[in-house]
């Protein structure tokens, strides 16, 4: 199948060492830690950058860099991907290990979760073994104390021999102390007396032997003890990295490796053990050490440390209620969005109408030519007005609620609930997470697919990400569901609209699974690889911060992008409407050309045209459609959804048209940004093309079946 690293984007993620310092004197800090320990939050608190954070493992998949100044010294912070260990050679681990090992950071800050210290210490011990300038940051101390878990940080510092700082990064607590501690460590002003993990005697002896060999071959820059241990443990990827980042003679290095092999074989024979047992012994020693340290410093005042979490999990993931609750929650989110967005949308829309009137007056006043007024006001401004009034309110409601769920820790539970179905589809369980990200933005969902290790399963997740509606498509779905399926008035209209959208989403998930399975059986053959998902502790969401964050970081970002694209698109459409060949406008000409095909799948030429013109951003499909229809007939003031309905009905829409448009919106080519992201992630034109054509064909087939069936039955 040619699933090489090159073809699936691993090459993209591995360019770690592009560290951009502001000056050569910058102190470089690497942030390492288990997934989901709040590393990104620490990073944000240190640097003031706003990297998106959420309560699920594997959020940081690329290396973010940021800067801060402390006591007139510049610091560069590199956020490494979350890992459980440095021994297993997943892509994330390689990146983290190579940076700590060869990237020469001045200080490594290991971020750990106070509510789960023992597991976190495993990685901390491995890092301390590799580098002595370590600061252990015990984060989430607030969550720990809420769970009645006490950590004796003084004792911990004493045992590990490195400085410890307790933080509650979300409230910004302990960050100043962390900066101070990092400064001291970087300047060598603290006593570091790093703990040593004691391995079995035969291992320690072999390490000594290997170290001797290393001295002969490599320069002193590298931690020889650590390297000896890992070479003994047989680590092919580390060997590759050494060759890559060190200027050494291949022949000499291979000689070293063969000597290591000899030493290993001798010891195996001598102790009468297998290589597997040797490796296990190394891991066991580290984990046992972590366990004993944890026992000494962690005091829990309750018998069941996470009893509330367990109770919540028993409901949220239960056999009986797990899935109904999930769908119910989604339904509530959409209901609130639809209900809440109605009024502000109408207000915004009438405001833009008024402004448009004012602008027209102004253009008349300065005697501007008609074409200029048409292009700028009727084309650009009107499209902008529609994009903002249709998109902004639902986004401003949907994003904060969605972020709330993310912050709470619900998304991994969704993955847990749905994993079985993804497994049946021969896909990866984490695809449920990337799919959830797709609800926000498919481009973000595609990037999130990096959390999936196996190239095959990652490609499946990338190609199918588009089957869940992103935020650019929700307004289309919401508007159509509201005006055609629910009717604009009536007591239950918003509930009916919610149900319609829920149905669309469930269908989207179903199609995701179906296509994943189809891909697994055809062009991406293979069996699902191992799936290990951590269900992190629930966290109390910070409502205030979430609202601010999600509005500024997400809502305005997505809106800004839509506006950037809508403005030129508005002009293009106006020109297409008003430039005529043989008395037929270019737009009508194109629409007429597309019409026969579009009719077959329950749409019309203008709708299909709007989808094609909407390629740069899905958000503008409805605005384009409105402009096209309005240009055909009398210009009406569109101040409410009722009038929108009238406009569409006058142009031959039935409920079937609305359903097919919704279905096509759900299943068609990804937007330009997403396609570009897919190209960047996969590094392959072929997979980008598949990502384009597979949803499109699916959409055509689905719409064709629905349209033809309904017509055949004569509804």
């Amino acid at each position, binding site marked *: 199948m040619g699933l090489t690293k090159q073809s699936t984007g691993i090459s993209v993620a591995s360019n770690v060492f592009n560290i951009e310092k502001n000056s050569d004197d910058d102190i470089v800090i690497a942030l390492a830690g288990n997934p989901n320990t709040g590393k990104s939050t620490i990073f944000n608190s240190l640097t003031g950058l706003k990297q998106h954070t959420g309560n699920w493992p594997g959020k940081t998949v690329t290396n973010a860099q940021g800067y801060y100044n402390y006591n007139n010294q510049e610091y560069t912070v590199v956020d490494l991907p979350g890992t459980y260990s440095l021994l297993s050679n997943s892509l994330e681990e390689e990146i983290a290990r190579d940076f700590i090992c060869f990237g020469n950071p001045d200080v490594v800050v290991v971020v750990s979760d106070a*509510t789960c210290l023992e597991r976190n210490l495993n990685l901390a011990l491995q890092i301390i073994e590799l580098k002595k300038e370590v600061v252990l940051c015990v984060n989430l101390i607030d969550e720990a104390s809420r769970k009645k878990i006490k950590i004796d940080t003084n004792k911990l510092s004493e045992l590990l021999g490195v400085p410890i700082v307790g933080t509650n990064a979300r409230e910004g607590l302990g960050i100043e102390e962390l900066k101070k501690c990092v400064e001291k460590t970087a300047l060598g002003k603290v006593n570091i007396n790093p703990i040593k993990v004691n391995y079995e005697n035969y291992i320690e002896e072999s390490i000594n032997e290997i170290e001797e060999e290393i001295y002969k071959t490599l320069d002193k820059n590298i931690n020889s003890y650590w390297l000896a241990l890992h070479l003994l443990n047989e680590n092919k990827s580390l060997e590759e990295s050494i060759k890559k980042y060190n200027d050494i003679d291949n022949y000499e290095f291979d000689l070293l490796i063969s000597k290591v092999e000899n030493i290993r074989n001798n010891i195996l024979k001598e102790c009468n053990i297998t290589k597997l047992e040797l490796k296990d012994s190394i891991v066991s020693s580290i*984990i046992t050490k972590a366990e004993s340290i944890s026992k000494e410093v962690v005091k829990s005042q309750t018998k069941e440390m996470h009893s509330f979490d367990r109770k919540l999990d028993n409901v949220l993931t239960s056999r009986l209620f797990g899935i109904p609750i999930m769908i119910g929650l989604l339904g509530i989110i959409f209901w609130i969005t639809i209900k809440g967005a109605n009024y502000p949308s109408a207000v915004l829309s009438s405001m833009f109408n008024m402004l448009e009137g004012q602008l027209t007056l102004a253009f008349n006043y300065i005697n501007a030519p008609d074409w200029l007024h048409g292009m700028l006001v009727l084309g650009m401004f009107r499209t902008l007005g529609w994009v903002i009034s249709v998109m902004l309110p639902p986004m401003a409601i949907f994003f904060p609620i969605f972020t709330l769920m993310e912050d709470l820790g619900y998304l991994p539970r969704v993955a*847990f609930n749905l994993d079985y179905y993804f497994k049946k589809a021969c896909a990866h369980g984490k695809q449920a997470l990337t799919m959830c990200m797709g609800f926000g933005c498919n481009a973000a969902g595609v990037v999130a697919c990096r959390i999936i290790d196996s190239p095959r399963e990652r490609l499946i997740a990338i190609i199918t990400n588009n089957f869940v509606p992103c935020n650019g498509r929700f307004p289309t779905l919401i508007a159509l569901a509201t005006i055609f399926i629910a009717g604009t008035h009536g007591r239950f209209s918003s509930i009916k609209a919610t149900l319609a959208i829920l149905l669309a989403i469930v269908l989207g998930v179903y199609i995701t699974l179906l296509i994943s399975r189809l891909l697994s059986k055809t062009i991406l053959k293979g069996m*699902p690889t191992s799936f*290990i*998902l951590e269900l992190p502790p629930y966290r109390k969401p910070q409502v205030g911060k979430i609202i601010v964050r999600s509005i500024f970081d997400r809502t305005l970002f997505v809106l800004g992008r839509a506006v950037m694209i809508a403005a030129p698109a508005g002009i293009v459409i106006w020109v297409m409407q008003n430039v005529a060949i043989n008395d037929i406008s270019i737009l009508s000409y194109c629409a007429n050309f597309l019409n026969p095909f579009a009719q077959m799948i329950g749409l019309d030429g203008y709708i299909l045209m709007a989808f094609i013109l909407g390629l740069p951003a899905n958000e503008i499909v409805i605005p384009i459609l409105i402009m096209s229809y309005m240009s055909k007939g009398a210009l009406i003031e569109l101040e409410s959804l009722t009038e929108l309905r009238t406009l569409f009905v006058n142009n031959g829409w039935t409920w079937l048209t609305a359903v097919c448009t919704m279905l096509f919106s759900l299943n068609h080519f990804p937007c330009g940004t997403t396609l570009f992201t897919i190209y960047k992630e996969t590094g392959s034109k072929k997979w980008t093309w598949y990502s384009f054509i597979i949803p499109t064909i699916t959409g055509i087939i689905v719409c064709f079946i629905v349209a033809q069936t309904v017509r055949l039955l004569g509804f």
Partner: protein
Amino acid sequence: MSKLITLNNLPLGEKGRVFKITDKGTTRRRLLDLGLVKNTLVKSLHVSPAGDPTAYEIRGAVIALREEESQYILIKIEGEE
């Protein structure tokens, strides 16, 4: 008294200690990373709506494992003390 079973057969709410991981490849390494070395206490917490995967408490963390992985973990159930 103690008996050996695979982790996927550990009833909900029950505890046991890791005796052996029978896989020899990547899965083994990943399981070890989670701290599943010999004698680690594992508790079966809850099962997902479709019956698989199952969530386990391992060293203070909650980890979901599919049957495909948990069948590689041999667990020793300790009798009543």
